[in-house]
């Protein structure tokens, strides 16, 4: 999407939020908070996609990486009785799953989409098989209210009164943007994703950088999974991630492979879902619940169809690197 349209859309949304705020303060704040919470796993998962694809590797396995991490994070926290430990277990599991993709897609040069699909199917199978009922968490992660900032009307209660994962997702997006576009690591990563042969000639270890990036990106998928289990839901169910890993890939494309763009795209996604749910709950629109459930998926397809051709992915994405 061109920048001009993004600004126009953003302006319209902000204006709409302000008008809504003066009409109904409580509902507006509740819809916005919902939107942000809905966006958190999408933001984190989109960052996974961005790191991988900027390095030239398609990660269709984010869904499975998140599912496995949510599983491990939940049972880790429930068994040890420690949420921090559970989160770390989730992140570690995500990195292991990221390592799987790195071995398949980078070391073995498998078809990257098949490698990711194997991760998804394996995660679905393992988490369903190992799932056990009767475990409960010691609690959910606390909400942290930032003094003073949280007192600002509208912005305060939405942005500065959140769980730790929510802050983490926003900070990670901003930091990743800086890393990608302002550091040597970022330059190398982008060059490996755009023109690996040139990167190789200039002395960058293409395979090694791809391997490391894909593995560490898995840690972010782990964080997203841990968020779902430990902060958003406080539980784990089979098939818990509900396609968020795939939606995140669409958000990555919609955000033009830019961390900040993807963050706003994810929040926009959350906003549509929040507004639709609120309208349905208030019985303003008599939409059957199934259509509200469909919304994120329909929106994904519509947005992809709308933006494709206008933005292009990293040039070498999906192609294993072969030295000439």
């Amino acid at each position: 999407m061109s920048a001009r349209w993004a600004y126009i859309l953003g302006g319209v949304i902000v204006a709409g939020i302000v008008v809504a705020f003066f009409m109904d303060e409580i509902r507006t704040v509740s819809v916005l908070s919902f939107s942000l919470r809905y966006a958190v796993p999408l933001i984190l998962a989109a960052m996974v996609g961005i790191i991988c694809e900027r390095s030239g590797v398609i990660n269709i396995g984010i869904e499975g990486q998140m599912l496995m991490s949510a599983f491990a994070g939940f049972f880790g926290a429930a068994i040890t009785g420690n949420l921090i430990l559970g989160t770390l277990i989730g992140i570690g599991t995500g990195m292991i799953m990221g390592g799987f993709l790195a071995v398949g897609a980078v070391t073995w040069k498998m078809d990257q989409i098949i490698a990711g699909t194997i991760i998804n199917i394996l995660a679905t199978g393992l988490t369903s098989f190992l799932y056990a009922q009767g475990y409960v968490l010691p609690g959910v992660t606390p909400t942290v209210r930032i003094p003073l900032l949280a007192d600002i009307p509208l912005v305060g209660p939405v942005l500065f009164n959140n769980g730790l994962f929510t802050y983490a997702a926003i900070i990670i997006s901003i930091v990743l943007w800086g890393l990608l576009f302002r550091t040597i690591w970022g330059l190398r990563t982008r060059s490996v994703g755009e023109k690996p042969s040139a990167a190789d000639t200039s002395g960058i270890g293409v395979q090694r950088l791809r391997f490391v990036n894909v593995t560490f990106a898995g840690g972010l998928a782990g964080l997203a999974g841990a968020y779902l289990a430990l902060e958003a839901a406080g539980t784990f169910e089979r098939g818990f991630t509900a396609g968020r890993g795939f939606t995140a890939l669409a958000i990555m494309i919609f955000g033009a492979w830019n961390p900040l763009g993807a963050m706003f795209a994810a929040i926009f996604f959350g906003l549509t879902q929040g507004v639709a749910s609120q309208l349905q709950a208030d019985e303003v629109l008599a939409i059957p619940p199934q259509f509200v459930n469909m919304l994120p998926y329909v929106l994904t397809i519509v947005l992809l169809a709308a933006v494709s051709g206008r933005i292009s992915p990293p040039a070498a994405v999906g192609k294993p690197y072969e030295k000439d």
Partner: protein
Amino acid sequence: MTTTDPARTDLGFTDPDPRRSGPLDRIPGILLPIVSVLLAFAIGGILIWLQGVNPFYAYWVLFSNALGSSEGLIRVMEKSTPLILTGLAVTVGLRAGLFNIGAQGQLLVGAVGAAWAGYAFTVPAIIHLPVAIIFGMLCGAAWASIAGVLRAYRSVSEVITTIMLNSIAIALVDYLASRPLKEPDQPLSRTPAIAESAALPSFGIIPSGFVLAVIVALFFGWFLVRTTSGFRFNTVGLNPNAARYAGISVKGTIVLAMAVSGALAGMGGAIETLGVTGRFEPAFNAGLGFDGITIALLARANPIAAIPAALLVGTLRAGAATLQFETGIEPEVVDVILAITLLLVAAPIVARLLFRRRAMKQTTVTSRWGS
């Protein structure tokens, strides 16, 4: 347009290079899937053993109940029928360079379509049955065509759209079965039962739907290798640039391949409705689409090999419930075994062990991504 790799559809399980002939290299490619399946069973056996059950006993229960009685055999054939067809759906897509992960959604749409056609008309069986099956196939084809058209004309990755269409289909059929197509005066969300004239008969113990699926698989074994359309599919899958220079419409072929793929999955749903369940209920048939991927890759994108691959998966699925009843092992162990099979057959692990080749040529099925 990306550069094309001549070996694009070989999916990472390349046949042995004839120039480097070791002792095992002469054994045909069938060895790889067989060894992968056996290894997956061994790993599954360890999981079963860790749960405190003798794995040999568990596998004996699994297979003897599925294959040891005529009821068991019927169940295996019924379970395998949609699997053959979803396996074929994925296969046809792969041949044309498309990765259709949406067989599940296409199957659901086909199943609900066939259910509607099955109860809404009163006509003789000779007309009703084919009409209901074809209507289910058309529903599946239409559903998949959304992804096909977007891929061909808007360059949107079919991988994402077919997955999204799965989730949309699940919500859509749930809505259809609970509102417009709901059986009146019924607490459950389900369609009315299909008419007698739309029910698939059985030949002795062999369900006619199974026969139909086998015939379709054989047909595609011929179609993909011996017909011009099949040749177009393969050419577009192997090298879209060459296809374009040869005057083949790449976009048209992509749309057609996706529609055929969806029609096959839709047929799987239609046969399930008309031959097994007799009506549509949203809860049935979870996860069949993923099994289709496993089957297609196990069969190495060969339509005829999809039959034994589907029978294997169908046997496991049919025996899973008995396994839980007799030994207390969760039926999801089958999912793990199948996932490991897929891992072993698609990743170059077993191939390396068998063929000891240093440079395995790895490839991409999907050429374009995002743009």
